[in-house]
């Protein structure tokens, strides 16, 4: 039995990890674009971007999942996600990417704006181009400052992926819970927690290592 449960949960965890990594892959860069938008001097760009960030951060991710999955079908009579497991997974991915991009964008913005203006000015009077100042002077300082908040957000994402079950993405908790109905046992549900703990533990070690790598300067 233990072996069967393990294999089933592993299959669920595969979906969890897929959602996790694909969300990061798209939302980390997209967040940077959004942060540039929210810092833009163009009011026509900055306004709408900040409005979107407010809405996305101000409503539950669960609600966003439901609206993004059911919305197009019911409002536009066009289920753009298609039917089947794959369609639901893509809808979940889109919701997660939008949600996490907005959170990441605010972390980026905070990091970029926390760099003293003197760093830019020092680069300017030394005849450096804007590009050189950003990539050679500013970027690493920003990365150092945002590693702790980003790692926090990423560890939250590990657990947030379980929300995808609300639109029937068969992630690990869905699989664990299925044993309550089918076999009347609850220990597989506890067992899912072990997967989360191990994985977030691994991430914690990774981020600690990055932080230590960047501790040579202040």
């Amino acid at each position, binding site marked *: 039995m233990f072996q069967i449960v393990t294999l089933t949960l592993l299959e669920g965890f595969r979906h969890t990890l897929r959602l996790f990594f694909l969300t990061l892959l798209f939302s980390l860069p997209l967040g940077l674009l959004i942060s540039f938008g929210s810092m833009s001097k163009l009011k026509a760009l900055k306004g709408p971007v900040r409005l979107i960030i407010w809405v996305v951060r101000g409503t539950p991710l669960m609600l966003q999942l439901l609206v993004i999955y059911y919305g197009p079908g019911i409002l536009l009579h066009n289920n753009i996600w298609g039917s089947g497991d794959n369609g639901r997974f893509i809808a979940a991915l889109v919701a997660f990417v939008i949600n996490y991009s907005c959170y990441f964008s605010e972390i980026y913005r905070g990091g970029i704006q926390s760099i003293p203006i003197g760093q830019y*000015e020092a680069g300017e*009077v*030394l*005849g*450096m181009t804007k590009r050189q100042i950003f990539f*050679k002077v500013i970027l690493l*300082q920003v990365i150092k400052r945002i590693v702790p908040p980003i790692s926090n957000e990423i560890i939250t994402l590990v657990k947030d992926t379980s929300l995808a079950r609300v639109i029937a993405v068969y992630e690990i908790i869905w699989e664990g819970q299925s044993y309550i109905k089918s076999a009347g046992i609850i220990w597989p549900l506890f067992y899912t927690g072990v997967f989360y703990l191990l994985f977030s533990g691994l991430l914690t070690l990774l981020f600690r290592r990055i932080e230590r790598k960047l501790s040579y*300067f202040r």
Partner: protein
Amino acid sequence: MAILEVRNLKKSFDSVEVIHDISFSMEEGETLTIIGSSGSGKTTLLRCLNFLESPDSGMIKVKGEELLCNETLSGMSEKILRRKRLHFGLVFQSFNLFPQYTALENIMLAPTLLAKSDSSFDASGIEDNAKQLLDQMGLSDRMDNYPHELSGGQQQRVAIARAMALRPDILCFDEPTSALDPELTGEVLRVIKDLAGKHMTMIIVTHEMAFARDVSDRVIFMDNGIIAEEGSPAEVIDNPQNERTIQFLSNYKKNI
């Protein structure tokens, strides 16, 4: 011929005129000190010369080349702007060293980048030159230290070396010791005095009156965006004629 000529420079922020029609010139090898109370426009003047602020109008000429004549910086291409501002070097009040680079790397970064984009800039001597500058600042043993491992005085000396690495025609100091305690102030002032002895052309904004008298060839007293008095240290500091200069210096008399 004057190495620097500034004519009718004006600068306002919103509707507040910070620099009101300033003209002066300086000779090669001269040390010019600008004194005056806070808000008199000294720092803004330096920032205009270094193109960190765009003057509203006026002319800046270095070695006979007009860098700016009644135009704003926004109308200038970034490339031309960068080439023109290299006539000046600037040492900041708060050092502004790059924290992720060692002392030596701080000095080498800008010349290395410049050599990559501009083939006329010689890349071979950059490291030797940087080491030599650190040596001149008395910091040879500190070249591999990061800024946070250095004292404020040491950081400022690295910043001076960094500003000199691009061999500017005129080196500007914006209150270089204001962020330092008296003990560390001395070591930075000694370095600047040493440069004056080597006839580096310098403009120094400072509140260190004894130092200004000691090191300057000429002193400018600024008040409300204009040059209220100008002359040798003996004239301006020891025997001021202008009412405002007398009033300003009376705050220092006890200390000099």
